[in-house]
């Protein structure tokens, strides 16, 4: 297929306008300072509230690990959700910005998943008496981390970026199957990990004095993710411009010295 031809109709103009990389860069440059400020502010409030939150009546002070562990777990899963949506944009519309979004989300999602695994392990030792157990929740979260590494390998090692993107997009869609497995693992299997205590029928089982700091930390982590994702997308757009310019430079040199 010659470059520039499309098998599938373009999405409506409004989406194209919004997703034009140059406009996107201008938008990122404008909102990024505000996002950084909001992230710092929310983390300051969240951490102060977390330090002053009461201990759990069963777990004591180790409940403080929850303020990192739970938001990191949510964001690790949300990043994969974003990658799956982006993968759809890559495979169906072949939109370059969707591919940029997917590629930029992978290392950030992997980092949050790693935070979830490490803090979970450090929480498990004093609470369960073990750093690790191969139960459904922990194993499915480890699988998510390994899937992130797989997507990153496809994106960063492919010789032909287009082929790497398509393979990574397919893995992103296939890997989305793991998200409901993680979510419902505590219901479907007998796990050491506790069941849902925040979003569950009948309302949250956590007292407001602990729940509110947790929700503030969740918002702070979400803002951190959005900030880092937009900044990483900007980097990726610049990286692709560098690549294009280098290819043009090589082409010009080849034309000048045949």
């Amino acid at each position, binding site marked *: 297929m010659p470059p520039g031809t499309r098998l599938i109709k373009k999405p409506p103009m409004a989406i194209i306008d919004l997703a034009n990389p140059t406009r996107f860069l201008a938008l990122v440059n404008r909102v990024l300072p505000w996002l950084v400020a909001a992230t710092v502010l929310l983390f300051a409030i969240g951490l102060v509230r977390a330090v002053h939150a009461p201990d759990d009546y069963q777990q004591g002070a180790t409940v403080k690990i929850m303020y990192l562990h739970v938001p990191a777990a949510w964001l690790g899963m949300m990043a994969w959700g974003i990658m799956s949506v982006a993968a759809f944009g890559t495979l169906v519309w072949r939109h370059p910005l969707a591919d940029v979004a997917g590629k930029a989300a992978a290392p950030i999602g992997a980092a949050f998943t790693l935070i979830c695994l490490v803090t979970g392990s450090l929480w498990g030792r004093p609470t369960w008496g073990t750093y690790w157990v191969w139960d459904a929740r922990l194993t499915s979260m480890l699988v998510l981390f390994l899937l992130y590494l797989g997507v990153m390998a496809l994106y960063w090692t492919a010789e032909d970026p287009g082929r790497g993107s398509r393979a990574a997009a397919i893995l992103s869609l296939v890997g989305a199957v793991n998200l409901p497995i993680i979510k419902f693992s505590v219901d479907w299997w007998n796990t050491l990990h506790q069941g849902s205590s925040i979003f569950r029928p009948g309302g949250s089982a956590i007292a407001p004095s602990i729940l509110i700091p947790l929700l503030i930390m969740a918002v702070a982590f979400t803002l951190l993710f959005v900030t880092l994702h937009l900044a990483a997308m*900007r980097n990726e757009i*610049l990286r692709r411009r560098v690549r294009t310019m280098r290819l043009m430079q090589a082409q010009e040199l080849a034309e000048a010295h045949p």
Partner: protein
Amino acid sequence: MTMSFGQEADFIVASYAVTAFIVAALIAWIVLDYSAQRRILGDLEERGVTRRSQRAGKEGR
């Protein structure tokens, strides 16, 4: 409240330290990557390399 940061202090501190380290590494990578890409782009533009979309009416070099 009374037993805040009791015998589990090591695990709590380690959790926060590891999280801070991973987040700091992520931020550092993104910031350094940005300045590297900006520098390379500046270099290429200085040498007169342009992308097709920048070439309206401008001849190569």
